[in-house]
Every structure is written in C-alpha cells, then in structure tokens.
C-alpha cells in the first residue's frame, strides 16, 4: 500500500543502451575518425608542451603575467609552477594542460558558431536552451559512460566529455553577447547595406567580444574541473594522481596533486581574464 508497486517497471536505460550499441556498430567509422583526429591534436600539443624546457615554460608564464598583470603576479605564478615541479608533478601537469587547452580550443571552435546561430535564430535558441540546461545539470560523470562505449577507455572519451561539459557557457554567453549589442548599433550597421557575414564580422562580433571572452574564461575553468573527473576513465595527468591517492588513502600525494590543480586553475583563470580585459582596452593604450 505504501510502497511503489514493484510490478510497474519501465526502463528507459535499456533503450538508450540499445541506441548506443547501434551507434557503436553502424557509426564505427565516424567515431574512429573523431578519435584519431582528437588524438592527433592531442599528441602534437603534448609533444610540444613536454618538449619545451621547464624553465622556459616558467619564464613564458612569468613574462605573460608581467605584461598583462604585474611583476608580483609573475613571481607568484612562476613560484607556483616551480613548486609543482618540485612535487614531481611536472609531466602530469603538462598532460593536464594539454587536455585542457585542446578541449578549450575545440569547445570554442564549436561553441562560438553555435552561439551565433542561437543569437540569429529564435527557434534554434528555444530548442537548444533546455538542452544546455540539461548538459550543465547532468552529473559530469554521466558523460563518461557513452564516451567509453564509443571510444574505449583513455584520453578521447575524457576530452570529449570535457568538451560537452564546457560547451554550454561559451554558447550561452556568445548568444547573450550578440543579442546584447545595442539595437541602434546593429541598425547603424545594417543601414549601410552589409551582407549578414559582413555585419557579423565587422559589427556584431567585435561589439560582443568582451562578453564572449568571459565565456572563454568560464569554459577554461569548467574544462579544468572536468579533467579531474575524466581521470576515472583513465585519463592521465593531475586528475589521475588525485584518484590514485584517493584509492590508496594517501593524503600527502592527494594534497600535492590537489594543490597543483588549484595552482593551475589560478594561473589560467587570472591570466585569461587579464588578457581578455587588456585586449578590450588595448587599442586605447596603444594610441598613447
């Protein structure tokens, strides 16, 4: 009487399971191509990052921070990186960075155009908005599961789920930014008879850029968060260090890997923010 009748069962999961099975078989070529494409990008970027000498990397971050923030931040960020090196986590960090950077680049390449379409098409926007909500509320682990089916364990499902997880903010903010360009400015742009493309490139995107850059920053942060979760499907890097520490209840290792992630997060967040702020006011500074 008080319990839900046990005979009334319905499982949507089995259908999803079947769809996934079907896709794995019939779309194998497609997934293979995606996988090798992603791997190609990833391997080359990782090769590059590990090829760069550690001190050179630290120097570049230091100079960037000096240029866009202050010498103080430069010293802070480079000592963060130096610490990570002393923890013995340099390679793992480079691996994590590779995943973050490649996922962010791919996310931006997909997300900004989709955001622009959202802004110019109300029907597409109403269709995609609940989807974006769902994507953001869904526990991030869930993305890993189909990824494993399609691509097996390892890097590719990790990167892919990172992309899916990081996509909503950049799409949302691009949409918002383009819709937020003052109407009179758009009218002024239109009144000279541009094509849609010209209007987009010469007026809408430049006007929307500050907000879009905020989206890029958010996407970066979300990608970094997801990379740790992605270690559960065998993605190496700092996430895996945390995971293995968790398994062994190794507080020392867990803390070192954890704090390294925090360091990377701080550096990426502050640097991308500073760079995007500066690009907006750059023109003014250059003139003087």
């Amino acid at each position: 009487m008080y319990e839900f009748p046990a005979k009334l069962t319905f499982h949507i999961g089995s259908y999803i399971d079947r769809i996934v099975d079907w896709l794995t078989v019939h779309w194998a070529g497609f997934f293979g191509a995606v996988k090798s494409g992603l791997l190609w990008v990833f391997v080359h970027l990782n090769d590059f990052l590990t090829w760069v000498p550690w001190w050179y990397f630290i120097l570049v971050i230091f100079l960037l921070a000096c240029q866009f923030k202050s010498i103080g931040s430069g010293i802070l960020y480079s000592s963060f990186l130096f610490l990570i090196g002393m923890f013995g986590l340099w390679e793992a960090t480079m691996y994590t960075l590779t995943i973050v950077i490649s996922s962010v680049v791919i996310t931006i390449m997909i997300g900004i155009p989709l955001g622009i379409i959202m802004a110019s098409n109300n029907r597409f926007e109403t269709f995609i908005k609940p989807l974006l909500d769902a994507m953001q509320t869904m526990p991030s682990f869930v993305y890993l599961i189909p990824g494993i089916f399609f691509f097996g364990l390892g890097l590719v499902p990790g990167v892919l789920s990172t992309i899916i997880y990081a996509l909503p903010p950049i799409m949302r903010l691009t949409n918002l930014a383009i819709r937020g360009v003052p109407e009179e400015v758009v009218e002024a742009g239109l009144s000279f008879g541009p094509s849609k493309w010209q209007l987009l490139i010469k007026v809408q995107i430049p006007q929307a850029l500050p907000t879009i850059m905020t989206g890029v920053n958010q996407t970066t942060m979300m990608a970094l968060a997801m990379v740790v979760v992605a270690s559960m499907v065998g993605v190496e890097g700092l996430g895996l260090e945390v995971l293995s520490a968790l398994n062994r209840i190794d507080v020392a290792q867990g803390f070192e890997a954890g704090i390294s992630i925090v360091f990377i997060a701080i550096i990426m967040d502050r640097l991308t923010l500073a760079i995007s702020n500066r690009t907006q006011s750059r023109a003014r500074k250059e003139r003087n």
Partner: protein
Amino acid sequence: MMSKLEINSVSKIYGPHPTKIVPYLEEDLTKEEIFQKTGHTVGIRNVSFEVKEGEIFVIMGLSGSGKSTLIRCINMLHEPTDGKVLVDGEDITAYSPRQLKKFRQRKIAMVFQHFGLFNHRTVAENVGYGLEIRKISAKERAEIIHKRIESVGLKGWENKYPDELSGGMQQRVGLARALANDPDILLMDEPFSALDPLIRREMQQELLELQQRLKKTIIFITHDVNEAFKLGNRVAVMKNGEVEQIGSPIEILRKPANTYIEAFVKEIDRSKIFQVRHMMMDPQAVIQLWDDLETAIDKINASGCSELYVVNEEEKIQGILSLDDALHGLEGGKDLRQIIKDDYEKVAKNVYIQNLLEQSIKSFYPLAVVENERLIGVLPQNRILESLV
C-alpha cells in the same frame, strides 16, 4: 519634376498577423479600438507624402507618434505592412535582398539619435565603415575618410575612439559616416536630441551650412517644434501614427489644421520663423517726388495712414511725409522736398522679425522694406506685433 521620395499610404502594424489588420485601417476605428479588437498595435497609418530633391523634410511628432518607425520604413530597417515607398520612382518595398543591399550602400544613409557608433572602431574606421562594406580599396577609403572628417570639422581626431569624444563630436562622426558613401538621401532620426541646447543650436546651423554645399535630400525627425521650423523646408506633423498636417513652417503657423497643431506651435518662437517678407504690406500709396503738397495730403488722407513714403521716378525711396508736416508745410507755403523727413528705418525683406525688433522701436514710422533702394513694401509696427502672437 518627379519627386525624390514618395511615401504612398504606408502603414506599419505590429502583432502576430499584421497583414490581416490592414482592412481595419480603412474603417473609422482609433488606434486603441484596433488594439482592443485585434491585439495589434498600429505603428503608422496610411501615411503619404512626397519629398523633393534637395529638400529638408522634417517629420515632427511626440514620442509614440510613429515618426521613428516611419523613417525606418524609408530604408527598410522596418518593413511597411502596407503601402509603397518610391525612391526615384522605384518601389523599394518590392526590392530583393540584393537590390536592398545595393540601395542602402549607394543611395541612402542614416544618422541616429544616440549616434549608433561602433565603439570598437576609431573615428576614421567608423567613417570608413560604409566604404568597407562596398569593398572600396584602402587607399581610396583613406582619401574619402580624410575629406569627410575634415568637412565635419573633426580633423586631428581620426584615431580617437568614440567614447573619448563629446556628444556633439560623436554626432559629427555619425554624420561623416553617413556622408561617406555620398548618398542622395540622408535620414536623420532625432540626431540632435541627445545633445545639450548650446551644441544643438550649433549643429543645426552647421547642418544648414553643410546642406548649402551638399544639397542632399534630407528627412529629419524631431520632437522639437523650434528645430523643425528652423531646419525644415517643409514639415509634417504626426500624431498617433498619422500625419496631421504637411506644409512649410509659415503655412503651418498661419493655418494650423486643427487644435492639436495649434497647441503644438503655440510655444514656438515665431520671430525666428517669420521674415519681413512674410509680414510686409504692399505700399498701396506713395507720394511721388514731383507731387505738390495738396496731392500729397489727398493721398495721405485717402490711404488712411498718417504718413506715406516719398519715392522718385525710379521708385527709390527719398523720405517720409506725415500729414501734420504736410499741413504745416502748406500753411508755410513750402515745397514737398523741403519738408520730407529721413528719420525712417529701412529693412531688407529676408530679415527675421527677431532681428529687427530693436530697429522697429527706434522709429515712429512703419519700416520701409527696400531692395536696391527701391521701396517694395512697408511694415507697420502693429504687423510686427501680429507676427509674434
């Protein structure tokens, strides 16, 4: 001559099914009644007018009168629900997207109330925007930009950004940008409303000077009666999406079509609109220099005035003779030439009433309106006062 622009019973309706509402416009329903019946808002309703080439045509109305919607129908930023917009005889509402692009690139440009500048572009880049759209080469672009920036007096500000400029200067950029493509028609949507009064007056003057040189066809929108009457060759007054009256400022002032317009023009400073030629009277009678005094006295008596101007055979003005002087002169046996006075005031016919008030109180006599020393009219003080109310 064909008119440059012809608005032919244009209506604009907002709502889910605007075209279905068009028949309602023919019926005797107010805007509110149509809204209650159909849920559609009538933006503009059956507006028709023609604009001649080289004319400044002002559309005046309060906010919500539909004037901004109307001006946007002329370059199709808003598509009219019904009616035609003819430019050089071509119906632009029937244009394909391609034709429309070309039309906007070549023939028409717009200046906006809040300037509508691109704040990510420098002044020069803003002005060059329309040229970029037309894919003009960088070299040619630089030349045109230079010329336009100079013509609006912004030389030396080319590399500044809009937000570093004052409001007046920003609108100059807007004007230069609109003129860069050398359009035939210039749409100006309350261009000076956002400026403070001093700058506004200055910009109005500059626009008039610029128009002297450029001779564009200008559609100018404003809610300010004084601005409308100062700038407009002709003015259309709009209310609730409909045109209430079209005419030259003088026509509207003299014969307001209804009480709404009467109230509208009440606050206007008429002395800035009326010129001597609008108020002067024909010199019904003049005394010839060779008349004897008896004839002169007869003429003065016949005219009902207390004095008359004296002219020579070339109708050139020689002096003024009052009845008293004439009678005294007759008693004293004097000649006409000896008693005429020259303490009258002369004015030209295109002087604004505002500018002759001081002159008019200096003299007891009606002002003499002269052209090349010839008397072409007289302007009694009471006519001057009449023009002010």
